[in-house]
């Protein structure tokens, strides 16, 4: 295995542990925004999509690249926008108790 690959595994394992620690503390009331936020973050595959679209040659690569970029971008824009829209609604309304 190449050094870069092993480094990737190290980063993956550490990120997974940090992720478990941080996300386990997210309160249940925010679990839906957590999921849609996770959708947005999984759109990070846009970086891979842009690379394969830009370096690919031939029409098959172009078609695959186009759809990869499109799908990832739906998640990025849609995921962040809808999460922000939801979180705007979570308010603590004082008084009336």
């Amino acid at each position, binding site marked *: 295995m*190449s050094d870069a*690959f092993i480094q*990737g595994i190290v*980063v*993956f394992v550490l*990120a*997974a542990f940090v*992720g*478990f620690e*941080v*996300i386990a*503390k*997210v*309160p*249940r*009331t*925010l*679990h*839906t925004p*957590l*999921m849609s*936020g*996770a*959708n*947005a973050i*999984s759109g*990070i*595959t*846009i*970086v*891979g*999509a*842009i*690379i*394969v*679209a*830009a*370096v*690919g040659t031939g029409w098959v*690569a172009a078609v695959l*690249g186009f*759809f*990869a*970029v499109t*799908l*990832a*971008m*739906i*998640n*990025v*824009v*849609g995921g962040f*926008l809808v*999460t*922000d829209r*939801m979180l705007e*609604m*979570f308010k*603590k*309304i004082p008084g009336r108790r």
Partner: protein
Amino acid sequence: MVELAYLAAGVLFIVGLKGLTSPKTARRGIRIAALGMFLAIVVVVVNLLGLDASYAWGVVVGGVVVGGSIGAFLAIRVRMTEMPQLVAAFNGFGGGASALVAAATVVGANAVLPAETAIVTALSLGIGTVTLTGSFVAFGKLQGLISGRQVFLPGGAATNGVIALAIVVAAGVGVVAESSTAYWVAFGLAAILGVTAVLPIGGADMPVVISLLNSLSGIAAAMAGFIINNQALIVGGALVGAAGMILTIEMAVAMNRSIASILFTQFGGGATAEDIGTKPVNRATADDVAIALAYAESVMIVPGYGLAVAQAQHAVKDLANALEERGIKVTYAIHPVAGRMPGHMNVLLAESDVSYDLLLDLEQANPRFSQTDVVLIVGANDVVNPSAKNDPTSPIYGMPILNVDDAKTTIVIKRSLSPGFAGIDNPLFYEDSTLMYFADAKKALEDALVAINLL
């Protein structure tokens, strides 16, 4: 430098998710995560600018514009009751994008890849494709395009096991023999597995399925990150994988079932509407409900999927306002698996401006029922079924439930006496202290409000 920028993007994702640990900091958090995404996209574009391939840039820009427009349209238009469908669709898009990155890698190298790259490519292709088709079946069920009931699969779980094994074999041949054809066979089989794995699962188990597909979409992205050796993808994918896995486990615990039993076994008793409904119940009118509520000191509202179906989140808030004006303390008790995805009820109530500190989860709510005068159950059934506590023969025995039977009076708003998803009768409905108000949730709440205002 470029690698450090990608790592910074990954760190911004973690900091952003940390913001989600409190509703106060959540909005700032998601914006920090968005900043990380923006950074990663700028870096990849700048890094590729040296490439002289104008038509390839046309492909990228075209995809960004089309995808961005569709994403924005969906995010702005979606109703909060439809969030489970949207998240299901996004799970699918994320998995699909990662599968396509893998597919483009196979095409680009004609399947001739270093062993480690070949393995992660096969994983990204397989996991991403299962996520794509599985999510679309989940979407179809939630949207009502496909029956939300459990469907019998010929051969049952064994069929899925055989398909999964065949995918591993095909992908293995692709990796070892450097055969594009074998990759495409694995891809086709994975597409089938997504459908056959999700199709048999019933609607009320969707919180587990959506959470698991969420996790898989992250793992597929992380595998795509290994293909192109990119730390932002690896970190982002690992985080999403972890988030989805935490939610999957939490949902399974809240149903007292193992993830395997939810995914691979049929569930529930065989009770039908004909079996039950012969026992006497206390039928209530809007006036009965109004009197019970208006003369209480404390009311706890228990929402379920029926609230979402009836779009009754604003009606419930209007009723709560009227009760609060009378000096009645109103809180909400939310079971973790109420609705069709984790947190579904919380979002609906937040939409109708219910303060989030009034939303109690299972552990907070249960000790309070005994000091509560009236519990108002709107479209929930299995999560308040006392059989889970005291009938060892019940399919849901052992599932943690909201102990609504501790309250002085229980009002159940329900369209009929039909059993819930578990297909079992609910003894709560026949209790002396239970009032059954048979109506559509929204209409029932509106009628009760009118009756309260006339008191």
